[in-house]
């Protein structure tokens, strides 16, 4: 028995209007702007003090300064040691933190509204009176350098680094992270100087959402910030990103990698572009979500990947488009084919009505869900301030999404996606990737995971090279989570077949299914650990008496890199 009304999804009810409390704007006597929304549904307050200075404003030769300044604000002030700040914040049941992004820095504070005064005291203390203690800076440097080592093992990070470099060139949006040398050369003096120049009221806006009346809040802020002195702000000029005239491929070589991280990217819009809403809808149709075209094609239909997406990075002084997926190495070329198919399709064909409607429904639907909490709402208002969006931006958001037409979607896709001169970045085994990408460009650069350029001709030659001779005894060093593990590998070779045995501190084992093809060595090491048999996939590139590659422990996340050298020839 099936009731008729159950057969189809029901029609929605009448949409309810979304009435946000109006934001009140004013300027305090020190010159800082205040934007506040009086929201007394719950006895909570949320504050964000935003500085219009971010990582792109790092001083000449001081990459990483802006970020270090923000990170160290709560590690010691004139009146509180780091630990005292932590204890005071916890005693209030409050939260307080600071961070820096490319366009701006932000200090966030939230608490029960009964503690608004106390938490504003702490917020002012962080912004006005940080001291950047020498010992805390040292600890910060150590942790940041350790963190970078981990980052360099992550393919996402390696891809971002190259995408930034290729797409943004000398523009500071190209920098995805300071280098260890940048971090080592940070000094207390440089931090204090940056703080003195950037943390000034004429560069600041305080956004508040919470159960506090705007007048009361303004008085509280006057009390704490009245003596904050304005500074001189210099408009920084940024170099133009490079103009592109052809498609390029940049490979970050991870020999033996079974995965390839693909990113296709070109310049697109800044955050205030009049095309922002059509681009938002276009991106939703193309790849923003798990019902968008890229996901449905590359994952659902083809099964090349767990997820394929596109993104729009619209920032203050520019921005970019990216399409990305992490795929099995063997389908790198096939994946590129589907990417280009989808990029061309959305530029050429009008989006069907139902697909357009679904994309718009999603965008207008999640919007109120995202601003349900004070924390969500303040994020939206803060973005409005950072990017200088119109006052009625939130109120008109849904209408602006709904107004986008199929023709606009096609037009902005054509205007902002450039398949013919897009930058392709692939993190993966360069040899395997190169075999599959020749149809897409012959402008190719290869780097290693330390961002050093590699010799492309040598790589190409290695592909046509006769099978390497691998016989002998190899000393292999695996670097695992900062620890080194070494093992001895004894190999025998018969044509392209390889057999052998391993000997390590963990136990002994054998090599099965070993093969050599050109410079590539592949096989499975079968060994015993804790009485359990485990299989380690090994994949390496051999050059003379040395090899480098990756060893994969089944399903254990990232493969571990290793290097080997021949200690004895058979």
């Amino acid at each position, binding site marked *: 028995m099936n009731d008729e009304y159950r057969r189809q999804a029901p029609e929605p009810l009448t949409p309810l209007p979304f009435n946000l409390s109006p934001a009140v704007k004013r300027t305090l006597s020190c010159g800082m702007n205040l934007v506040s929304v009086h929201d007394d549904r719950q006895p909570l307050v949320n504050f964000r003090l935003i500085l219009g200075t971010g990582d792109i404003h790092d001083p000449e030769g001081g990459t990483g300064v802006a970020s270090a300044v923000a990170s160290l604000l709560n590690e010691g002030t004139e009146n509180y040691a780091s630990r005292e700040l932590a204890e005071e914040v916890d005693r209030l049941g409050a939260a307080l933190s600071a961070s820096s992004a490319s366009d701006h820095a932000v200090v966030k504070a939230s608490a029960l509204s009964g503690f608004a005064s106390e938490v504003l005291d702490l917020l002012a203390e962080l912004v006005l009176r940080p001291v950047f203690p020498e010992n805390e800076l040292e600890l910060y440097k150590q942790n940041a350098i350790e963190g970078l080592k981990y980052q360099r093992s992550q393919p996402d990070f390696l891809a971002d680094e190259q995408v930034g470099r290729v797409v943004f060139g000398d523009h500071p949006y190209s920098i995805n992270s300071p280098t260890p040398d940048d971090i080592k050369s940070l000094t207390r003096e440089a931090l204090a100087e940056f703080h003195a120049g950037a943390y000034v009221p004429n560069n600041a806006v305080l956004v508040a959402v919470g159960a506090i009346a705007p007048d009361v809040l303004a008085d509280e802020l006057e009390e704490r910030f009245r003596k904050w002195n304005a500074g001189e702000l210099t408009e920084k000029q940024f170099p133009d990103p490079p103009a592109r005239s052809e498609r390029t491929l940049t490979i970050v070589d991870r020999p033996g990698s079974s995965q390839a991280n693909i990113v296709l990217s070109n310049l697109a819009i800044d955050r205030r572009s009049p095309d922002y809403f059509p681009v938002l809808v276009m991106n939703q149709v193309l790849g923003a979500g798990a019902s968008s075209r890229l996901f449905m094609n590359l994952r659902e239909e083809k099964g090349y990947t767990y997820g394929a997406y596109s993104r729009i990075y619209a920032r203050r002084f520019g921005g970019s488009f990216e399409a990305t997926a992490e795929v099995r190495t063997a389908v790198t070329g096939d994946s590129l084919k589907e990417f280009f198919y989808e990029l061309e399709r959305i530029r050429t064909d009008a989006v069907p009505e139902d697909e357009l409607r679904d994309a718009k429904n999603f965008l207008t639907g999640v919007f*109120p869900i995202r601003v349900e909490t004070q924390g969500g709402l303040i994020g939206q208002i803060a973005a409005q301030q950072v990017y200088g969006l119109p006052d009625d931006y939130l109120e008109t958001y849904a209408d602006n999404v709904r107004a986008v037409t199929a023709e606009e979607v096609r037009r902005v896709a054509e205007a902002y996606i450039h398949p013919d001169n897009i930058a392709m970045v692939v993190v993966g085994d360069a040899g395997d990737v190169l075999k599959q990408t020749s149809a897409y460009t012959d402008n190719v650069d290869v780097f290693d995971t330390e961002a050093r350029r590699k010799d492309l001709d040598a790589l190409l030659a290695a592909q046509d090279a006769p099978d390497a001779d691998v016989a002998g005894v190899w000393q292999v060093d695996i670097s695992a989570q900062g620890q080194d593990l070494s093992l001895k590998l004894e190999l025998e070779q018969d044509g392209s077949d390889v057999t052998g045995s391993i000997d390590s501190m963990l136990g002994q084992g054998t090599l099965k299914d070993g093969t050599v093809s050109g410079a590539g060595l592949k096989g499975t090491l079968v060994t015993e650990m804790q009485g359990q048999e485990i299989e380690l996939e090994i994949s390496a590139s051999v050059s003379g008496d040395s090899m480098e590659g990756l060893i994969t422990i089944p399903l254990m996340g990232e493969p571990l890199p290793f290097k080997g050298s021949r200690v004895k020839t058979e």
Partner: protein
Amino acid sequence: MTTNFEIGDILLEQYSIENGLRVILNPDDSVPVVSVAVYYDVGSRNEWQGKSGFAHLFEHMMFQGSENVGKAEHFQFIMKAGGTMNGTTSSERTNYYETLPANQLPLALWLESDRMRSLAVTQENLDNQREAVKEEKRLRYDNQPYGQIFDILISMIYKNFANAHSTIGSMEDLDDATVEDVREFFRIYYAPNNAVLVISGSFGTETAKELVEKYFGSIPAQQLPPKIDVEEPSEVAETYREYHDPLAPLPAFLMGWKIPPRRTKEFHALYLAGKLLYDGDSSRLYQKLVKGEESVTQLFGFTDERRGPSSVMIGAIPKPDKDLDRIRRTIVEEIRELATNGPRPEELEKLRNQLINSEVRSRQSSLSRAQTIAEYALYDGDPGVINEEIHELLSITADDIRSAADKYLNTENRALLDVIPASAA
């Protein structure tokens, strides 16, 4: 502890429809958003030997389509309406929920009711979801460093199978499951009279009631599921075990204590004792181990809250070459200190402010309200407890915390699991 904050009551209307489905409405029109939560009174506690993992397997089955909703369409319907959704399984319950623009309430009720009345329990769905669960087990438990240690500790703390086995269950049991077993499980546990439906957010109560009747009214009630026994002796089942974790980069340990059921005064006192010991940068153990001794990279602890006997767990991943025994001694000494002298006045102030803050914060989101209300309705038979438990917690005294810590934590009656990494073999 006293409070000078007025915490307003959450507005609730509770009723049952004829088939026994309990419905709780929590209208709040501050944002045009609605959340729907359906909680079934079935978790791993309802499983018996030979049938472990069924509750969780079933959570997967619930996304495989029903009479009018195709396989995996549930997700697409919600996405296209601009919503979010999920489902989870614990020892206590299996839940399903979605948050949508307020005018999409009918969609959520249609989707939830269709799978409650007509889930597609087929051999094909069973086979592929069984494989999906195995894959999930491999990814989330077997092949993650430290991925299995919580399940192992649970099995050491409890003696009763209903409490001691994991939610993910045994793969042999799942392999043995027949489509008839699964149909029977669905019939017994996924009945309207074994579920709670909560609607929270912006909606008219009359409209909501009509929609609930329209979509859920004709689903037949079933006989109530068999009673279960989760009683435990006070001793822990096993006090020490070593576990060799081939994926762990560093040694670690986990300690566990058996404590009284949720919402008892002693449970509340121990929950607060735990917060003082391990919660946040100003907690006692963080300041002693992560800061002071600098012997630990990661410190963690939590209370496992159950309707029956519950537990407290504290664990640490020490820095390389640190003496684990010494770290454990510090933990035991800190517990003894708390059990002897009780919390300091400033700690009580911190607890009070953190409790009120998190209570108020969690009320902002319709989904969080719907979930909390559903739990109280299911566990306590009274959703109104959402307005009471915060006051129960705030009335716990320093001496309540001291004496509960003394009785339940300051004791040798605890489980200790040592995790030994492969590199130490």
